[in-house]
Every structure is written in C-alpha cells, then in structure tokens.
C-alpha cells in the first residue's frame, strides 16, 4: 500500500508532509497488526459465544414407560415418555417415542424410535413384522437391525429395568 504513489495535491490545497511520509510504512504495519489482533480476539470470542453450550454432553436419565402388567407380551408396543428437562433457559416437558417388546414379560427390548438415517420416527408395521421409516422407506427388524434402506446403523437399543412393576428405560 505505502509503495503506492500519492497523487499530487491541488496547489491551492497545499502539499503532502514529506517528513511524515517517511513513517507511512510503519503506521500501515501498526494498523494491520492492531486490526489483526482485534479481529482474532473478536472472532475467537464471538465463535465461543455462538457455540455456547451446544457441545455439552447430554446426560442420560431413566424414564418411566408404563406398568409391565399393561404391556402386552409378544407384540411391539409403542410407548411415549415425558420428563422434565432443561432446554437452554427453559424448563420443558421433553417428550419422545420408544418401542418396547418382551417375549416373556421378564426381559424387555426397548428401542429408540428415531431412525438412524436422518432422525424421523419409525413406525411399527405389524403385518410385515418390521419397523418402517416414513421418510426414506427404511426397514428394521423387531430388534432394530437394518433390513433395507439407507440407515447406517441399527436402531438404538436402550438399557431397561423394572422397578415396582414399572418398565423404565435409560435415554
């Protein structure tokens, strides 16, 4: 920049201060250094602020899915859960859909109904004995294994326990 020749000023206006011009390069470097430091500081702070708490690991919690006695054996049952949760600055009721299955009424398989492709909720197709995703027609077995379609992983299987006759799952 400083090697750019300055245009001559109109005579009636005056002239460039030649003595000052010797510092031109130095002032330019100072300007870019100050601006650069400020920009890096602002960008770093701004980026950290905007990322906020979005990368904090999620905490798992146990949710109640219903009384074991009321869940029919041998069929896949859709169970919705609701729990109090913190959503940023809000206290909300977080809801979700799970699928519970038990052949014997003692051991339960609970699957997260979220399709592992792009996050749609799968439906249980009792005629086909498979889960079906309404988005891209993916299919999963009762155990959540991919049979057909684009999902890269099986449906997420959750830890379960039965307490006081109530089936619970860890989400």
């Amino acid at each position, binding site marked *: 920049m400083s090697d750019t020749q300055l245009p001559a000023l109109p005579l009636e206006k005056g002239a460039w201060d030649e003595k000052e011009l010797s510092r031109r390069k130095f002032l330019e470097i100072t300007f870019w250094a100050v601006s650069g430091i400020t920009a890096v500081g602002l960008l770093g702070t701004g980026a950290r602020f905007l990322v906020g708490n*979005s990368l904090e690991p999620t905490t798992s919690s146990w949710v109640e899915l219903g009384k074991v006695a009321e869940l029919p054996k041998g069929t896949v049952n859709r169970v919705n859960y609701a729990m109090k949760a913190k959503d940023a600055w809000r206290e909300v009721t977080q809801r979700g*859909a799970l699928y519970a299955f038990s052949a014997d009424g003692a051991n339960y398989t609970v699957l997260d109904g979220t399709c592992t492709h792009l996050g749609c909720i799968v439906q249980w197709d009792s005629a086909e004995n498979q889960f079906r995703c309404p988005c891209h027609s993916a299919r999963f077995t009762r155990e959540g294994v991919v049979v057909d379609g684009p999902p890269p992983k099986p449906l997420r299987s959750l830890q379960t326990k039965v307490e006081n006759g109530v089936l619970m799952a860890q989400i």
Partner: protein
Amino acid sequence: MSKVGQWIDKRTGISGPVRSFLNYPVPKYVHNNLLYTLGGLTAISFGLQVITGIMLTFYFDPSTEGAYNSVDYITYTLPLGWLVRGLHHYGASAMVILVALHMLRTYFFSAYKKPREINWLTGVLLLFLTLAFGFTGYLLPWDQKGYWATRVGTSIAGSVPLIGATIANIMRGGAELGQSTLTRFFATHVMLLPATLALLIGVHIFQLRYHGMAPAITEKAKAQSKSFVPFFPYWVVNDAIAGLGLLALLVYISATQRAPLEFPADPTSSNFIPRPEWYFLFYYQILKYFPGGLEPVATVLIPLFIFGSMILLPFIDRGEERRPWKKPVTTIAAIFYIVVIIIFTVLAG
C-alpha cells in the same frame, strides 16, 4: 434542483453519485430483452421479503411455547395477517425461482466469463444464502413441517464424517431440537442472513456496474450494442412493471390459498411424513439412494460437487465462445442438472 435539494447536495454531495447511477448507459439489446429484468426482479422479491419479514417480527414470538400460536394468530386472526404472511411465504418460493432463472440466464448467455468471475461467484453465494433463508425460515412457525424438516436437515449435516455431530449440535444449539434451535434459526433468518445478503447484493451490483453488461450473443443483439438508453427510467420501468406483476401474483396466491400451517411440532409423531419445501425435494429424494456407509456421498460429496462445479465454472469454461448452441458441453451439463432436479422432485412428490 429545488433550493432544499441544493442545500442537501451542498452538504452531502449526493446528487453526483445518484445521477451517475441513474444515468448509467444500458445497451439497447439489454433494454429490449425481458430476460434481463430477472436480476432486478430478484432484488425486488428480496425487498418484499425484507418488508414483510420486518412486519411479521412485530407479532412473531420466537419461543417454542409461543411461536406456533403467534403464527396461527398472524394467519387467522390479525387483520391482513394472512396477506403479509402469504406474501412472505410465497415470496420466498418466488425468490428461489427468480434466483434460479436469473442464474440460468447468466449461464446460457455466458455472462460468467472473464472479467465477470467475481460477479458469478457472488451470485452463487447469493443462491446459497437464499436457500439458507428458506431452510431457517420454515422452522420458525414451529409446526410439524418445520420441526421435522429441520430435524432431517440438521441430521444431514450430522452425517458428515468426523465433524458431523459437532456441526449438527452447533446448528441446533444442542443435541436435540428445542428453544436454542429456534432462537438460532430466528437470529440467523432475521439478522445474519439479511445483512449478509444485502452486502453481497451491493457487491454484485457494483461488479455489474464496473464491468457493464456482458457482450451480446445474437447477431440481432450485437447490432444494438452500440446504442444506449439511461438506466432511469428505461430499465427501471421494466423492473417496476415486472415487480408490480409479481406482487399482484403473490397477492392473488395469498388470497386464494392461505400460507400453510401444519399441526404444532410433535417430537413423538410417527405418522407425519417429513417433507421439506419443494425446492429441497429433489435432494431429499436423492438421499434415499445412498445406504449405510455411502450416506456421506449424498450428504457431503453431491452438495460439494454441485456448489464446487458452480464455483469453478468461470475458471473451467474460459473460451471466447458465448453462444450456448455452440457450446454443447456447458449447455448439456445445465440441461442435465435441470432434468435431474425435475425427475427427483417428481419422484419425491
């Protein structure tokens, strides 16, 4: 100039630049071809989005508890709310169509060639920003469509190898869609994107003025290329008439078909079939064909290829030839893109 005008001009020096802008010489072949109104019409549609968008923010409640009800209130209770939201909703589609047509005109007239590469690149960025407007906009009513389309959209980002989960979480403001997502999308939609888009439109128009219109491609147009008319009122009047026509069309559509609002967002819903806006449908359909480990091909490579080829276009096609019928490779490539988009949109529909 009136005395008041002179007073202002002496203190601001505004009349010179304004006069120079308005008296800009427009070649007759441009003035006589309505295809050249597409750029101005796109700018008008953006202006309409800004005006209706500002009006909507007077009533919109950007909270997960209140967003849906506020949009329902705007659409069905507020006097003329149906009109303002309708213009904004259908205007968004109009803007996507106009950007696409404007780019096709530029493409087929080879107006991206040297020395107008930067103008083409800002155009590609403007297309990207327009789509980002659409993506961030339709979550805001917090209805089923917006919620699920955003869930799918952020999951697409989440499938990027290695850094996908981080990107998706930053987009959503957390692991799940919620208040942080809505606030982020709202801030992006009403602050970040309009400011960036307006700035880029400024660069785009400055570039256009700096280089002038791209050379004519037909013999008939070339014959008119040495004859000019001033930008105001000759070209402006074409844009104004086209803009009024666009507004009339959008008012008609808004009056005959209320801007849609689905049921409120329900994270447990499995019978709602998520579908993005029509301009993302082709891509939504393409995602179906890349199972398992091939998923990043659809979520990373295809978008990179599409945008990458658009960015590289002026650096690859550097020949002197500008007539599309003499440039089979670029012409067939564009027709291929158009046909693919139409086919996959129809398949998804």
